[in-house]
């Protein structure tokens, strides 16, 4: 093949350009320590990195939310424990006064004073705050939910997103703990209503519906107004009404049960939260590893490649120098 001068020069320019370009890419990777510096460097990996980053961002928020809910529930749990302790103490006190033989009216009146104090203490427990939020008010968090045994909050459950599509209530509304509103009972009542409606619509032929039979009223038990129970106990003690005291004791049992149930509910939510936070943290790390695997440059690889590119550049510079230099003119005198 005939080789003209321009071919030489073009070849030199081309190869120098190529090696310089390769070197620039490696240099960029070495300075940023990233394998992908723009999406087109690796489109598939770039989109995966984007997804991973969104997941990381969400997970961090979910963890924040979950920790917040945990705080709230932890405090609720401690408060409920306190409440149940108070109620148990009350029961012990009342138990000694239920029998006319073991006590006398004067002592009962003295005890009534203590019960009144406990009543106030319960009121204070019902109005506990975490930060500036009342924990037992439902959605009503900025106003004390209990005033003289009256509940002024609502049944709102503050659900909070703790994972993609997973929500968890971080509060226990006071009407469940103190007023005995039972979600199960409400549900059952709703089912009864639906059942009756079904019966009316379909007639007796569809009697084999897979719904709860009607003959179990209050299968889930009716709740009790804790304040009322305590108030009655106090009145009974003051009135020296041993029967009233005994009646109150039954109510008190139900009340203790009610609080313990709420506590168990909070406990199971806390458990779920722990598990959730753990899996979020694991997912967070997984996603960080994934993103890093896709976008981060392997330092050793990059530096050795950079060195190789540098070597290439030097080699092509020195060959270029030799290629351009000689011509016939150099040998003519």
């Amino acid at each position, binding site marked *: *093949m*005939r*080789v*003209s*001068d*321009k*071919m030489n020069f*073009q*070849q030199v320019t*081309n190869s120098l350009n190529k090696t310089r370009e390769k070197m620039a890419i490696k240099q960029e990777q070495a300075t*940023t320590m*990233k394998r*992908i*510096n*723009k*999406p*087109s*460097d690796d*489109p*598939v990996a*770039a*989109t995966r*990195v*984007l*997804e991973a*980053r*969104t997941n990381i*961002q*969400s997970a961090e*928020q*979910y963890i*924040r*939310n979950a920790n*917040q*809910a945990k705080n709230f529930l932890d405090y609720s749990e401690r408060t409920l424990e306190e409440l149940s302790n108070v109620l148990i103490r009350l029961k012990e006190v009342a138990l000694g006064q239920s029998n006319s033989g073991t006590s006398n009216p004067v002592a009962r009146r003295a005890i009534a004073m203590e019960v009144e104090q406990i009543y106030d203490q319960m009121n204070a427990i019902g109005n506990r705050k975490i930060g*500036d*939020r009342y924990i037992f*008010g*439902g*959605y*009503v*968090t*900025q106003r004390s939910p209990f005033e003289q045994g009256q509940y002024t*909050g*609502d049944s*709102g459950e*503050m*659900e*909070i*997103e703790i994972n*993609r*599509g997973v*929500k968890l209530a*971080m*509060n226990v509304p006071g009407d469940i703990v103190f007023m005995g509103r039972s979600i199960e009972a409400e549900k059952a009542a709703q089912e009864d209503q639906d059942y009756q409606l079904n019966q009316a619509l379909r007639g007796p032929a569809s009697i084999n519906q897979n719904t709860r039979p009607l003959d179990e009223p209050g299968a889930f038990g009716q709740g009790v107004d804790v304040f009322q129970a305590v108030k009655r106990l106090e009145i009974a003690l003051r009135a020296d009404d041993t029967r009233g005291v005994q009646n109150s004791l039954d109510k008190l049992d139900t009340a203790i049960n009610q609080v313990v149930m709420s506590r168990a509910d909070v406990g199971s939510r806390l458990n779920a939260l722990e598990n959730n936070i753990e899996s979020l943290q694991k997912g967070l790390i997984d996603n960080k590893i994934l993103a890093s695997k896709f*976008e981060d440059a392997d330092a050793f690889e990059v530096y050795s490649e950079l060195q190789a590119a540098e070597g290439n550049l030097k080699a092509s510079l020195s060959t270029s120098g030799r290629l351009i230099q000689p*011509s*016939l*003119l150099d040998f*003519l005198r």
Partner: protein
Amino acid sequence: MPKLTGIMGIGRRSLANSQVGLQTVSHNIANKSTEGFSRQRIEQATTPSLGTGGRQVGTGATVKAVRSIKNDYLEKQIQSEMEKLGYNEGQAESMARVEQVFNEQINGGLNRFVGEFFNAFRELASSPESAATRTLVKESAKAVTRDFGRVNSQLVDVQKDIDRQIESEVQIINSYTTEIADLNEKISQIEIRGAIANDSRDRRDLLLKKLGEKIDIKYAENEEGQVTVMAGSTATLVSGFSQNELTVSASPGFNGHRYGEARVIFLPTENSTEVDITKQLKGGKIGAALEVRDIVIDGLLKDLDEVAFSMANEVNALHIQGKDRSGRDGVLFFENFPTGKLNSAANLRINETIDKDVSRIAAAQGSFGLGDNRVANKISELQYSKVLNNGTSTFDDFYTSVVGTVAVDVNKVNAAAKHQKEIVSQLSNIRESISGVSIDEETTKMIELQKSFDASARLIRAADEMFDTILSLKRY
């Protein structure tokens, strides 16, 4: 009967031939680096010999022609490959800028801001009473609107730059076509006398290549050596000695576009009607720029509008049902779009009422308790609800797929440009192998011609001495 004057004549012609040869050599050397130049060689032939008696005596040599050494078919092939190269490189250039708009590898972009926006609502859901989280929601919403605006305006900036690019390319095209028409004239003037217009042809071939890099052309040469150049399918840019200009006009709102975009207009003659040939241009740098501007970026802007529009509407629909911190009915979270879906990314704004008073942000569904976070929850859940593409993708899916498509496109056009560059460089290597100037070769040629010049001079001197010898005969 040979004559001394004959020898003198051969010597004289030979001197002249060597000089022509040397001049050609020097022309070659001088144009060694001239773009598009093809080396030239003299075509030397014997002059008719004289027949005296039974012998034919040679009468020396003459230069028949000076000819370029080139392969016309190869030139044509390079021209068409360079047109493709212009197209591929044009695409790669513009797409690289488009990609930069969506580059979130180093800095955060829309993806991050949208995520932060929804996270702010999650934060609000976890403490709906707080004024601080409401401020966070407002700030993150503003960041989203700003970034939608940024992406939108950066894309539009690329479009505007493409407009300017087209304008300057068209000017260059006009200067090329003017020169081609001039060269047509020169070539036919020279060649009508039987000579070959080597340099003008080289120049014209080069201009056709350069023209093809800018715009897709078709061209053909007629018998008089003039080329006719057509751009697109209807615009005759050069015909014979005459050239027609292309102009660029910006027609605002043309074809439902967002603002004045440059159109390429062909003006056949001074007083005829203008023809818009924008749609015909599919090749060269201009074809690529038009494609990126009218198809790629336009599509991206529409996608962006889709996301902004849906996001605003979905958030608004939920927010307006909510109750704010004082139990008032929810207002729009984002302002309504004055122009509907079109331009919604540019027009995305947070409602002024909310901007002025963050307590108007509605987290609650009922108007009773401040701890009510149901609407905040619903809004944050939008991030992962499939509200786009007829309910098949989430905001993240949609945006990620937009970025992915851009990335794949850029990757593809870069590879194509690289490949095409290889092809062109291969072909021009072959061209240089045939037509390129080699200094070694020219030096050899120079020495050869110099030697023959010397020899011719010696010949004349010999003849002169012979004359002297003959003349001296008479003195005795």
